[in-house]
């Protein structure tokens, strides 16, 4: 399935079909999750109604980590097999991951103020997630920093791989250090320590975020493929101006990408 789709033309056809379904599904699931989280979920016995922030904070945090892993795996695939779709997938996913990380940090801060009495502490969990946010931004900046697009892609992929070290640090920071952030209550050995009435809306929201990620990923990958195809067509149409401006010939090129105009 994956190897079949790993062809730009086939990917475009498959994603044309998948896009509206993914979009509709994510809208419906997120709407259900929102109503559940804001209306039907019970208030916490300690946190009161402020616990409702958790229904977006926790799924956003899970997405921040998962999307980074996705970027890293796609980057490794690109570095090893030089597959252009893997490179496009990594670059398409990174801003989505950065957005989820921003949501995680902002909502966590808004929850921390009433519950901890502070917007921010430099504890291991919060700091390592902030590092994750900067890793995303660094990756995006690095990929776009070179005139030669393939060099940017390679440098960015390396950064993404090195940054993987941060993922276990985030996950286990609450066990390794004495953090203000509470330890895991869902993804832990043994059963989750929160009630099913709160677990369910949490999971619905997580599924909704995953669907949104899938939709945005396909949309952004299609955008990148369109742009590369257009760029190649422009080069093909104007060989004279390419000779006159060698910088334009290098910028944004797609080595290894079979273009079928």
């Amino acid at each position, binding site marked *: 399935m994956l190897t079949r789709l790993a062809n730009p033309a086939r990917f475009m056809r498959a994603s044309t079909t998948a896009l509206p379904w993914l979009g509709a599904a994510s809208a419906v699931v997120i709407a259900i999750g929102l109503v559940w989280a*804001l209306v039907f979920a019970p208030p916490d016995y300690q946190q009161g109604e402020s616990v409702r*922030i958790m229904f977006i904070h926790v799924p*956003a945090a899970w997405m921040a980590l998962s999307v980074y892993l996705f970027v890293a795996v796609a980057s490794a695939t690109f570095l090893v097999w030089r597959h252009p779709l893997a490179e496009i997938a990594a670059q398409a996913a990174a801003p989505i991951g950065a957005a989820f990380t921003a*949501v995680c940090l902002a909502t966590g801060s808004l929850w921390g103020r009433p519950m901890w009495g502070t917007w921010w502490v430099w504890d291991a969990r919060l700091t390592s997630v902030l590092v994750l946010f900067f890793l995303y931004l660094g990756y995006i900046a690095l990929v776009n920093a070179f005139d030669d697009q393939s060099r940017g892609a390679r440098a960015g992929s390396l950064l993404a791989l090195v940054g993987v070290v941060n993922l276990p640090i985030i996950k286990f920071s609450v066990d390794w250090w004495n953090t203000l952030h509470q330890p895991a209550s869902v993804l832990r050995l043994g059963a989750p320590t929160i009630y099913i009435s709160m677990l369910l809306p949490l999971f619905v929201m997580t599924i909704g975020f995953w669907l*949104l990620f899938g939709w945005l990923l396909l949309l952004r990958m*299609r955008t990148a493929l369109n742009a590369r195809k257009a760029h190649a067509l422009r080069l093909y149409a104007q060989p004279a101006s390419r000779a006159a401006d060698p910088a334009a010939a290098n910028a944004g090129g797609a080595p290894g990408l079979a273009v079928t105009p």
Partner: protein
Amino acid sequence: MTSAIARWLAMGGYAVYVWPAYGVTCLVLGGLVLYCWQRHRHSSTELARLQQQLGRRE
């Protein structure tokens, strides 16, 4: 009825934290959706225009 809605909006005294949290999320994710959607549309029309200009079809 109105008091039930008012009570819900008050979020047990945490309204100033809960609603901004949901607002920020909607703003960030909604903004990303709009931005990506527009860029996708623009790239599709631009490619179609180029293909037509060059007299080529897929």
